[in-house]
């Protein structure tokens, strides 16, 4: 932990290698009715 910069999150969720399995437990389509913020969706492949 730096003296001037506190690292809060290191962004482990980029999943650059994924091509998209489409198995998300809740799709954005449903979330859209509450207005989609894609960042709050999770990936089932990670068990989240």
């Amino acid at each position, binding site marked *: 932990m*730096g*003296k*001037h*910069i*506190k*690292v*809060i*999150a*290191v*962004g*482990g*969720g*980029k*999943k*650059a*290698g*994924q*091509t*998209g*399995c*489409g*198995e*998300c*437990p*809740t*799709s*954005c*389509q*449903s*979330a*859209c*009715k*509450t*207005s*989609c*913020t*894609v*960042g*709050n*969706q*999770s*990936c*089932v*492949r*990670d068990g*989240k």
Partner: protein
Amino acid sequence: MPLHRFTCNGKHLIFDGHALALHEVDEVAWELLAGPAEDIEGRARALAGRFPREAIDEAVAEIRTLAHQGLLFAPDPYGGYEPPPPLVKALCLNVAHACNLSCGYCFAGGGEYGAGPAVMPPEIARRAVDFLIAASGPRKRVEIDFFGGEPLLALDTVRAAVAYAREREAAAGKEFGFTLTTNALLLTDEVIDYLLRHGFNVVLSLDGRPEVHNRFRRTRGGQGSYAAVRERILRFIERWENWDGPRGYYYVRGTFTRYNQDFAEDFLHLVDLGVRFISLEPAVGRGDEEWTIREEDLPRLEAEYERLARLYLALRVGGRDVHFFHFRLDLDGGPCLPRRLTGCGAGCGYLAVAPDGSLYPCHQFDGRDAFRLGDVWSGATEPRLVEDFRQAHIYRKPCRDCWAKFLCSGGCHAAAFIANGNVLTPYVVGCRLMQKRLECALYLASAECVRRSKKEKTEDKGGTWEVHGPGRLDMTISLC
């Protein structure tokens, strides 16, 4: 400008939109990060006299280390993106082009989508299930979202679709999920039990304070619906909270307009009612309606989101297990690449079905002839339109240069079309509000991190200070 530098509720925060890394910084690091990486030496020289030389050198060294680790000034990892072939995952069944309310801000023209009242016959809903099974290919988890108008006006159709999907899913190798969005007026105990028994996710519409709700959400006869809606929603929540078996989620979803820019008060009102899962969303109009949010409203709305973030944090610290949809953020996990770049998938992964079986890119395009894709019998017969939506990803929009692109995914196609006449030019008011909500979510991630650190330090000393509520905040934090 993927490196985003912002202050929220007094905290200096830096978010690297390419790395999805979040940092809280002090004054000297804040000043050093005020421009591009290649100018840091120049900024360091300019800061001499304002900060001790030693502090400047330390901060420069920390910035270099983080840049080397890919956590600051990270390059875009996804250049040259080509979206995958279209494969349907979800259908929105607009089972009722009719509504028992007549809300003043309704995008669907009182629920009828400009075409007069209609209800989807059960046989078309069953055909839609067949279409989804075929069009989803190898995908296992598929979804049907019942929408309208008011979908409970077509409850027989809903029941028919669910029963048929359950009948077919095992042999077809699918798992169906169901969502229903309702104004709650027809939410009897019997209907509630039906929805719970079938694991529905339920979105319940209630705008907040009585006067706010009643201003727009009126019956056909012009009466405010707050009292009846509140009673039915609280009944739903009571049964949901006490339900023993598996259950879906629920959200109480409110709409705010330029008339209630103090919408944090509506959030508090819903919390006071006992609602734990809340979403509040600005109404989207053509721009000429009196109630539409305008660019001049943004400073006040942005300040209101910051106020809401403070209130939300205080509630959570005080032990209230409440959740605000737009402050949820999963920085560690989150969705996969296609989802980050193309968002909801309207037009290729997600389609809406009108009562007559016509297919549209999403529920908001229902009834717009230029966007009719085909029907549930023949499938999508307009490949050019499907391709237009498949290619409507962030690298073909101004979003490519936005710090929030991997969290927002380019915004709503329908909102863009309504505001600008095409799906590639984002709705600027929506962008600003999305960015502010994300700033608040990042602020809350930071605040939770500090809170956890303090708790750990207190426990290390054998202290008894306890600030954690019964549940954690909705962010996943990898390091702090």
